[in-house]
């Protein structure tokens, strides 16, 4: 019996055609491999993480957390929890520069979350919103970090950067309003950094955006306070700042309104 070469040639041709039409994606292969490895490894990775938390040091704990998240890269809540823990970990007792130490940890945590954006999918905007919170929370935890961030506009400048990215991805009113209500802190940070022009621009933008705030009464009141601050910073000393001084939401600006 002789073998006809035609079926073999046809099969090879089909393979080549399939290769050209849909080139193999390494990411698909990785995901397929991970799907097999994940259920077998997850229980042991979890227990290793717990063990590192119980008997290991911080570096080992976060390395284990990274291993866990390598298996579940799309778990944005997991990325958020571990990155926040990293950024908010107390400074070592013998730290000579707590502000610098906190700054270093904040940068690493933000880089961690930035890396997680690629696999966050539809939750990328949520991830960006949590990233926006992180600098402010870190400054509350370690006040020396605020000094370190002052030159670049304070934690509010970082927060605004991530809120802007979130707004671009998901232009929901909630995200827009979060940015609008961040304006006093951002302007205060810019004023502390000596960037008066940018601070005025931030206030102008916030005044403009206040028309989009859904609660009309709140929008009007907010716009009025912003206008008073804007006028005062513009040199109008006749403006009455009593309402601004009584409003806790403008506390960050009080030092610049004297």
């Amino acid at each position, binding site marked *: 019996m002789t073998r006809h070469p035609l079926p073999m040639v046809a099969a090879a041709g089909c393979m080549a055609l399939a290769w050209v039409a849909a080139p193999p994606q390494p990411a698909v292969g990785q995901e397929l491999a991970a799907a097999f490895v994940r259920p077998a490894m997850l229980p042991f990775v979890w227990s290793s993480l717990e*063990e*590192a938390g119980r008997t290991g040091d911080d570096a080992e704990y976060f*390395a284990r957390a990274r*291993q866990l998240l390598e298996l579940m890269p799309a778990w944005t809540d997991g990325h958020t929890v571990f990155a926040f823990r990293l950024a908010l970990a107390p400074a070592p007792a013998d730290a000579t520069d707590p502000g610098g130490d906190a700054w270093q940890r904040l940068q*690493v945590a933000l880089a961690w979350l930035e890396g997680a954006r690629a696999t966050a999918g539809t939750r990328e905007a949520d991830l960006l919103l949590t990233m926006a919170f992180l600098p402010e929370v870190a400054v509350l935890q370690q006040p020396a970090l605020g000094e370190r961030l002052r030159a670049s506009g304070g934690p509010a400048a970082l927060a605004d950067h991530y809120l802007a990215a979130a707004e671009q991805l998901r232009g929901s009113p909630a995200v827009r309003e979060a940015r609008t209500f961040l304006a006093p802190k951002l302007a205060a940070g810019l004023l502390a950094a000596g960037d008066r022009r940018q601070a005025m621009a931030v206030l102008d933008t916030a005044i403009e955006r206040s028309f989009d705030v859904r609660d009309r009464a709140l929008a009007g009141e907010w716009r009025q306070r912003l206008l008073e601050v804007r006028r005062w910073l513009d040199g109008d000393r006749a403006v009455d700042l009593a309402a601004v001084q009584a409003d806790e939401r403008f506390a960050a600006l009080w030092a610049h309104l004297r």
Partner: protein
Amino acid sequence: MIGRAWRRPLALCCRACLAAAWLPTLAAAGLAVLLQAMLAVPLPGLADAPGARTPWLHLPLLVAAAACAARAAAFWPLVAARRQGADLVARLQRGPLRGCGAAVAGALLAQFVLTLPLATVFARWLGAPARAVVVVELPSPPRPLLAAGQPPLTFALGGRRLREVHLRPLAGPPTGAFEPATVEVRCDGERIGTATLAESRQHVRIAAPPRPVQTLELTHAGGTVPLLFGPGSVTAVEAAERSAAWNGTTAAVVWLLPSFVALAVALLCGAHAALPTALTAAFGLLFVQTVGGAGPADAAVRALLRGHWVGATVPFSAWLPSLAAGSLAMIVAMLLRRRPGR
């Protein structure tokens, strides 16, 4: 005489295991290197953590152990039931286990030869420190709560020379307005440092003077957060350093325990079951005792990579359950094999 010993079951099995297992072990080590390079991408700014690299050491160690166990079970015809040549070997071989014990010992010897370079050289490549330190968990006092109005907690150290004291207590809910707890640490009455603790498992290191210390005392010095110093909350790092090579050797010996248990249970199963059943039992037990962490092997690898003295982290008392389980399985296997008709 050497020639006769060379032809005994122990040596025969050891040589067969070495011949069969060296290549898979080498391949597994290569795969571990590759996976470590591909998957363990460090985040810039995070400190190096060799203790988190245990999976890459587990892989070749497990392959070596599994390959030796598989080859030993397949090599000696009396390990499992219904093997070809079993009757002939049973007539020639004396002893209650008919050479199965020697085959197990040969497999363990081969595994030790293969895992020794992994636990010494390969572990160093994975980042295990060049010197090991003894880390001792201090037993917690009968009333381990430290809070305002509570007496100081005292831990006996028995004259150890310390390098560091590590605190990692559990934190309770604050008893008033939140204020982190301040704990004063004293060695024989001399204050060596203060720790500020607010969260559960918060890790604080305090440098200790390198002199013999009899007692360590923790005193509440302020704050509203009560702290519970349960088992594992206080560890002392001794000042003396030990050889990393000996540490690796100890870890390689500890890694023989899971194989001993697995092979002993395979012998027990093999008294009536065929080779596939005995091998399945052995592989399952190996996996559970190593990667699964049920046994001292996982702790030994972790200690090795962290640079902790394996002999202190996994003391001989921790070996006893494995030794007892393996010995019991061997005894039962021996009794089952003594029945007439075998």
